[in-house]
């Protein structure tokens, strides 16, 4: 009898606990419980270790991890930084929520995020940390055998993805190629591969296409995800992530795709030469990317302005004989109104990233350091973190 009552009480308690937990979950879901800031000790003792946690863009993840490893080694483990590769959009959202000390995005804070940021009234800075570029990769067995390299213009890339150019043998493509390669273009349909997941790579690539094709601008536009007209013809398909697109292009003869150059380099994919604004055919490499980006250094908007259109206005399709047209800089953003020791830790880490971190030994294969002009501007913005307030 007593035993029975005890069990009923236990059961009731269990239900109560479960209900409580579910209630908490529901409240949290609705945002009633404020998110707590991760691991920022409030203690003021300078000797204490400060943890900074960041997250966002998947593209810079390998580079971030190397920087963190090297930096922690150099400082003898006094500083601790953690970076979570959760995607540009998620990084931005978590940073806005206050769960991350810094966020990182392939392009910049989105318009939706920027609006929330303005509403919150918090002060922040945005800083470019590394250079990136997008390579056009392709699979043309005939070209590979003969040692030919594909040449394209931006407008033609747009026309391919729009479905205006159907076959490799199209005269518009043929006339760009070297004499000896022209006849090797097969009479086959081009299979257009793109990212199926939302990505900064797609954002940058489609921004470039809106710059070089009026029709693209009107029919498609730019963003993390767009609707691809070529898919509707049954001549295009998505792949998940840079690795998914690379794999699909590699395994599908007569296909074309776009990937972050770092992937093309690491996987040794064939890369097309793209005609730049001045009419020269260029490959994405350290020289051509730096050449394009250094021109943007002086025009870099203020640290608190809307950077969403930065690539569109200042990075892409730059003038200059040696400029590669599809370049960008992943951007890191952090709040200024944080505890002094957090600000100091962020400052120390990113100062190291923008100075020593840009040296060859700290750069992962396929990534490209920022040109020094841009680095100088970024360091200026970073100073705001430790400016007297």
């Amino acid at each position, binding site marked *: *009898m007593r*035993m*029975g009552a005890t*069990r*009923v009480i*236990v*059961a*009731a308690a*269990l*239900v109560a606990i*479960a*209900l409580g937990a*579910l209630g908490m*979950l*529901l409240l949290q*879901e*609705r945002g009633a419980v404020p998110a707590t800031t991760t691991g920022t000790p409030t203690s003021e003792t300078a000797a204490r270790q400060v943890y900074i946690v960041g997250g966002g863009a*998947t593209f810079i993840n390998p580079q971030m991890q190397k920087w963190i490893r090297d930096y922690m080694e150099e400082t003898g483990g006094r500083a601790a930084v953690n970076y979570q590769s*959760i*995607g*540009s*959009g*998620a990084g*931005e*959202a978590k940073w806005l929520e206050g769960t991350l000390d810094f966020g990182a995005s392939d392009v910049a804070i*989105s318009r*939706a*995020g920027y609006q929330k940021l303005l509403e919150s009234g918090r002060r922040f800075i945005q800083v470019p940390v590394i250079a990136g570029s997008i390579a056009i990769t392709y699979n043309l067995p005939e070209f590979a055998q003969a040692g030919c390299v594909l040449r394209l213009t931006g407008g033609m890339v747009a026309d391919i993805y729009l479905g205006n150019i159907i076959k490799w043998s199209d005269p518009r493509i043929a006339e760009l190629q070297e004499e000896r390669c022209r006849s090797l273009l097969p009479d086959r349909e081009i*299979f257009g591969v793109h990212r*199926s*997941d*939302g*990505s*900064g790579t797609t954002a940058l690539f489609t921004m470039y296409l809106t710059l070089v094709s009026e029709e693209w601008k009107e029919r*498609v*536009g*730019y*963003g*993390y*995800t*767009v*609707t*691809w007209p070529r*898919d509707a013809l*049954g001549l*295009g*398909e*998505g*792949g*998940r992530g840079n690795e998914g697109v690379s794999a*699909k292009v590699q*395994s*599908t*003869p*007569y*296909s074309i795709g776009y990937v972050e150059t770092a992937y093309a380099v690491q996987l040794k994919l064939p890369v097309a030469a793209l005609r730049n604004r001045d009419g020269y055919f260029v490959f994405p490499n350290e020289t051509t990317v730096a050449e394009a980006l250094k021109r943007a250094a002086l025009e870099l908007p203020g640290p608190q302005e809307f950077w969403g259109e930065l690539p569109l206005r200042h990075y892409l399709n730059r003038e200059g004989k040696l400029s590669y047209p599809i370049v960008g800089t992943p951007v890191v953003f952090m709040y200024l109104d944080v505890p002094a020791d957090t600000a100091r830790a962020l400052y120390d880490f990113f100062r190291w990233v923008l100075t020593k971190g840009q040296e060859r030994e700290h750069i992962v294969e396929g990534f490209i350091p920022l040109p020094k002009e841009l680095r100088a501007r970024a360091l200026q913005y970073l100073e705001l973190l430790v400016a007297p307030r």
Partner: protein
Amino acid sequence: MGSKRSTDFFCLASAFNVVLMLSVALVVSVLVLRSLPIIHRDGVYPLVTSVWNPTREEYGFLFALGGTLVTASLALLISLALSVGSAVAYAEFIPQKLRPAVKNFMDLAASIPSVVYGLWGLRVLSPFLRSYLMEPLSALGLSGVLGVPSPAGTSFLSASVLLAIMVTPFASSIIRERLLAVPMHVREALYSLGLTKPEVILLELRYIRRSVLTAMAIAFSRAVGETAAVAMVVGNTINPNFFRVFSPGYTISSLIADQYPNAEAYYYMVPALFYAALAMFAVGFAVNVLLLRYGERR
């Protein structure tokens, strides 16, 4: 004493039951709450249009909803044949000595992680189906109805076949057990009427048809929700013509897997994805209720 015990047990069991039901309720309420902004803005519009254009904040996911239904239904049909066939083979033809080995093998097949199935589907199954099924049929002029296969063979059809292979061990084990549990006197009575073996098997299947429906309900739920493997073979392409099963497309779970990481950069994409999840839940639930109504418990 005995009745006390059973009362206690009843209390404990019902407590856990309440918790279970509450968590389902919580999941549904979160889905509804999170999708309210887009329901408020667009109503049922996302359910009936196939325009996914985040740049213009347009989110119609009919293409994914249709894709989910097409792949899951096709998988269900294929799996029905596979699982009934394998269960009959097990119960009627496989010698007693071999049965444990066959049973273990089936259980093993059920425990393979879906990513492994996905890789196999991408590298082996899709190219195979393309070369030996889709290409020949397209060449016969069916591509107008069934769509044009893509170079890698990724398509609704590949996803359906893969799903069928994945869910068959589950469905088959249920049917197999029921088939073995057909009472001996029923079986003997059938044979005593002078029926042949195929006729007996058919009658036995009619005898357990409700269990077959239950097995199919379970298979369907699994097929609707499967993400990792499907995302690898379905092609991930926005395709409004989801009835053209040779062409690549999307299912709701693969759409969510693809779009969620950057969704928060848009105003309405997160609500739209929750709405899609809600729609998928509703479809899975409705089909389950329907199948189970005619299934085991009436």
